[in-house]
């Protein structure tokens, strides 16, 4: 199991060695953004603005204007919620090549409570024109997404998970392509579409269901914007039920995004799993069960949806 902040940092350092334009920006989050090794190797290319997220994102846009490629890192609830207008205007409306890195998203901060959970970020950011929103599902995909974001001449939000995830049992490409997804297994009974930390849990749910003779398709939807509409439409046409699973609010998040596509092109029965309320106190595992996002609960939702 891997904390994706590690492949994030390793890849960023590797890219920075080859490209002097790459800089990191953070809000007193050298530790929590896992930038310690970057700081050690490139002390002059780490811009730590202190606890000031609006300034952090604005500074990122200014660095991009100066010809640098900034990776702007902060805990996801703060870089998005606190600096949302800067994300909209300074980054997206400017079409700036700024890579916003939302660290430890979802309810990764568990017991710290709802103030530190980032469950609204996908809904907020998906509404912003021209901002690519990417949620890698494992270490390999995290590295691929970081490489792609460094080369992509436009605004990007990368959601970098802290809750450990296994390597997905797939040979998904080492290059990341926005607007694409990976079908990790196929089955005719239903399609489970997961993103980020929920993809491996969706795969576990599919195993449980397969043991009962219910074969499901599982899709890793890492690119939230742009969205792989073709795969969603195909799933809606080929299976009678779509279940979305995300560590975020389905209203406007992955669930909402998928529902927009099916409503337009291929109406289908859907269930949307996610964090539909502020979380009660609990650990990551406890909250996963509370919101019905563990493998057994996902399987239960699929069964109920088929009934």
């Amino acid at each position, binding site marked *: 199991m891997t904390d994706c902040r590690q492949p994030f940092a390793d890849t960023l350092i590797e890219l920075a060695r080859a490209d002097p334009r790459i800089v990191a920006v953070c809000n007193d989050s050298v530790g929590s953004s896992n930038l310690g090794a970057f700081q050690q190797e490139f002390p002059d290319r780490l811009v730590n*603005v202190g606890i000031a997220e609006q300034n952090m994102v*604005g500074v990122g846009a200014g660095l991009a204007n100066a010809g640098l490629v900034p990776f702007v890192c902060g805990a996801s609830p703060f870089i998005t919620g606190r600096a949302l207008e800067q994300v909209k205007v300074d980054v997206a409306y400017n079409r700036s090549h700024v890579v916003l890195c939302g660290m430890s998203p979802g309810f990764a901060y568990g017991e710290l409570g709802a103030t530190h959970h980032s469950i609204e970020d996908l809904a907020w950011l998906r509404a912003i024109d021209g901002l690519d929103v990417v949620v890698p599902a494992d270490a390999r995909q995290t590295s691929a997404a970081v490489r792609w974001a460094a080369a992509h001449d436009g605004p990007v939000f990368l959601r970098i998970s802290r809750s450990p995830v296994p390597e997905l049992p797939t040979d998904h490409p080492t290059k990341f392509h926005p607007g694409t997804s990976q079908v990790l297994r196929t089955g005719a009974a239903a399609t489970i579409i997961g993103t980020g930390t929920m993809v491996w849990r969706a795969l576990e749910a599919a195993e449980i269901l397969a043991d009962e003779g219910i074969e499901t398709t599982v899709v890793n939807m890492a690119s939230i914007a742009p969205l792989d509409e073709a795969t969603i439409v195909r799933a809606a046409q080929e299976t009678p039920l779509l279940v979305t699973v995300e560590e975020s609010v389905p209203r406007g998040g992955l669930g909402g995004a998928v529902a927009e596509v099916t409503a337009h092109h291929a109406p289908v029965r859907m269930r949307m799993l996610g964090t539909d309320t502020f979380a009660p106190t609990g650990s990551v595992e406890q909250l996963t069960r509370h919101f019905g996002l563990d493998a057994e609960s996902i399987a239960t939702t699929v069964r109920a949806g088929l009934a």
Partner: protein
Amino acid sequence: MDSRERARLTRGQVLRTISGAGLGHVGGDFSVTDILAVLFTDVLRFDPANPNWPERDRFVLSKGHAAVSLYTTLAMSGYFELEELDSFAAEQSMLNGHPARAKVPGVETSTGPLGHGLPVGVGMAVGARIRGEQWKTFVVTGDGELQEGSNWEAAMFAGHRELGNLTLIVDRNRLQQGARTEETNALDPLDEKFDAFGWEVKQIDGHDHDELRSALMGTHAKPLVIIANTTKGRGVSFMEDLAVWHHKVPSQEQVDQGLEEIGTHS
């Protein structure tokens, strides 16, 4: 063309553009006109034929509602044709009510919501340092705008980093949209605030071109703030120092009188 002549022509053009479009922020356009005229005539290094020339000085108008003054200045500087100003606020025009980087050559960053320009300018100045380049960054904010907290996040960081390649000009016309700044949420003592944040502070008459030139062209080890004392609506007697002219559109009669006072009746 010297800066005074440029300022005179700018004011006349601003009045005609706002009158033609039926919208604009004439009061703030006129308070910042002389600052823009001196910057673009005598201070900034830029190449309008190559707006993204890497070594250009960066200029950010944080008070984006003064867009017509900026657009006029950019057109007079050669970024686009003066005739383009006739399209201000028209359907599909590149000239929005607030400047957008992706649309208008010469606009370094989109502004409109207040408190955005200085953080971006600080990022530019830090970027020049990281790249070891000599170009400078100049930011103009309004004064009421300094009630936005993001400015003080940026000011604190600029002071901490001792960004001697950054200059902030505050268009201190002492009026915000609804009332006087000091009656709304007082800014004074503004000089002491910036001094406490680690900035070098100069206070000048923001309509005196010699004072502006002298303040803008020196070197400084710390970030420099020029508190430019200005008059909202400067140049047209019946507009001066009145909050109502923040975004009121003048009648044809008022335009004619204004152009006469400015001396650009054409």
